[in-house]
């Protein structure tokens, strides 16, 4: 059911969402990020792109698995620490991030479900914001089966029509969220729908960058595993973690025990983000590291996104948000690298 929401009424919708943790993009120290919206009136959806994508809310950087405590008798007391699953709503989610969540859903779902992820995922309502113009000069979602107005992974899609939003409800969760707003929403007229569709169609022409003809890249990559191509491409990589931490689809993690007390031995098992770009990511306890250099690690990142994920899940594991390009301190450009792979002659 398509609705219209006047921009001036947007804070009233937020005010009606007291039962939810409400996240929205906020500008802190010149950096946009999704944070809890303390003041509904201060929330504006007029923003480009966050540094850290919406994945941080369904897959936080730190979460607990269980508590352990040495028992008086032999063994340990264990207490599972599943997330409460408090309803959360995230406003301003760009379509590339919505699509990215559908990709992490594949990884954490399937035969073996990760309940920690799903508790948060099921409780989260993603309210998308169509990109009338590209949020970043490095956007290329159209090249990786995405679009600036894609509905994948979203529960609601809002389109900015000037002084009002065109609000499309896409799922039951989205329907419920819109109904919380009650009478502040009005029925959309056919003219409103047309205006939104025009914005969507125009947005596709505005992307500054594209990654063309990559159909054969997965097969090409398979043949380039031992190629010296990767040594040259990775020479300027400084092996920080920015490209992967800030990628909407990256989901690697580390598990550690954080010990609070030695006697009795007690603590919590904690999951934190990890990245294949850290040198010790693949360090074995024997001391052997199968990815000992930057070439191997850059190859891993590109292969995972444009070969392995395609082979396993029939999707590119890149949604074209451009964060890795914008924020890489040395300007390593995934579009350029994949183009070179595409055109590579061994």
């Amino acid at each position: 059911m398509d609705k219209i929401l006047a921009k001036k009424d947007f804070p009233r919708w937020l005010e009606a969402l007291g039962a939810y943790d409400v996240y929205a993009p906020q500008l802190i120290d010149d950096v946009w990020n999704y944070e809890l919206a303390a003041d509904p009136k201060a929330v504006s959806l007029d923003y480009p792109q966050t540094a850290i994508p919406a994945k941080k809310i369904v897959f936080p950087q730190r979460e607990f698995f269980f508590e352990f405590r040495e028992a008086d008798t032999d063994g340990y007391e264990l207490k599972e620490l599943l997330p409460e699953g408090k309803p959360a709503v995230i406003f301003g989610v760009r379509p590339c991030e919505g699509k990215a969540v559908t990709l992490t859903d594949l990884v954490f779902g399937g035969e073996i479900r990760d309940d920690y992820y799903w508790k948060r995922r099921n409780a989260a309502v993603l309210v998308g914001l169509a990109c009338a113009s590209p949020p970043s000069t490095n956007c290329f979602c159209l090249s990786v089966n995405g679009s600036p107005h894609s509905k994948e992974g979203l529960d609601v899609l809002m389109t900015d029509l000037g002084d009002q939003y065109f609000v499309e409800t896409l799922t039951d969760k989205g329907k419920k969220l819109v109904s919380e707003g009650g009478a502040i929403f009005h029925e959309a007229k056919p003219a409103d729908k047309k205006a939104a569709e025009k914005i969507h169609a125009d947005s596709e022409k505005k992307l500054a960058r594209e990654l063309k003809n990559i159909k054969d890249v997965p097969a090409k990559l398979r043949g380039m595993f031992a190629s010296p191509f990767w040594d040259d491409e990775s020479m300027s990589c400084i092996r920080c973690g920015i490209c992967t931490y800030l990628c909407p689809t990256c989901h690697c993690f580390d598990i550690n025990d954080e010990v609070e007390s030695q006697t009795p031995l007690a603590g919590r098992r904690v999951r934190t983000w990890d990245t294949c770009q850290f040198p010790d990511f693949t360090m074995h306890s024997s001391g052997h590291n199968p990815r000992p250099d930057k070439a191997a690690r850059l190859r891993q990142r590109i292969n995972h996104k444009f070969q392995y994920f395609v082979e396993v899940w029939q999707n590119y594991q890149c949604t074209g948000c451009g964060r890795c390009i914008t924020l890489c301190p040395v300007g390593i450009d995934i579009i350029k690298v994949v183009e070179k792979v595409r055109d590579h002659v061994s």
Partner: protein
Amino acid sequence: MVKHEDVRAEAKKLLESGKVKYIIAYELGADGWKANPVFIKKPEDVDKIIWGPTCYHNLVRFVVDEKRRKAQQKNPDTRPVGVVVKGCDSRAIVILLQEKFIDRKDVHIIGVSCETTGVIDERKLAKKLKGRIAKAIEFGSDENFLITTDSGTVNLPASEIMADRCLECIAHVPVITDVLFGEKTKRTVPQPFGSVEKIENLSSEDRWKFWNEQLEKCVRCYACRSVCPMCYCDECVADTITFAVSPDTTAEEKAQKIKWLDKSPVISENIFYHMVRAIHLAGRCIDCGECERACPVNIPLRMLNKKLEKEAKLLFGYDVGFDPEKPALISCFRDEDPEDFIR
């Protein structure tokens, strides 16, 4: 004025004569206006080399990489690498020489003077452009930067968009070179530690509040550490997993390896990491500002390192990064070092 052609000619000469293995320099990135590091191996590629206001990277970081690369090769090519350095970057080479991490013969230093200006801060520029997209940027006249945007050209005073560290720069001409391009201009900085003094002048509680807010944002991506030429340790205190093992290392030893801090990005661990990095850089940080530039969440990291650079000068009369023969700050002392804090 530093001319691209002069730097390129020097690079070509070095590569054709085989004097250097390759040259670490700046080229224009895919967007056509921002610089990126480039590794020029063949003389015919020297036309990629540029010099401009977006050459903010500290290329000495790649001299460290070269040493690591050589260490893993059986018969390494022992010729030097050429590296383009600004004044700040050249001080990084001085530190690496002081610590005998590299030999003088491992680098061929191509110095570039920042003359009367410096490099830009991208965030400051974006704020000034207010949505206009930059297409090119050059050094203008009269200490301005000339910026071509998608809607016309803009002349901006350098002082408004220069990186903070350039505003306090004490080494705008490289201090150690094999060849120098650009004029050896004279510049004075009335307050070389002005930015850090602003924070010192806050009350203790306000300072704590400031650092708490800032370091809470940290996601422990370690970009600050990764981009720093002086953070060259193979095993870092912050990583609990990289450990040098041999076939004789027992499981017990592996399990008992000291874990100084947790991986979780919570405030106490973030503070620990940044404090350790700051103290390990005492007397070694030359304020190239790369840590602050690389940080994706805009934490003012310079304000930690700069404080210790100031104390090194004030308390111990120690100038960081000028004399390759000088011992490291914490491996020397003077009889008159302050003692009044000791009971």
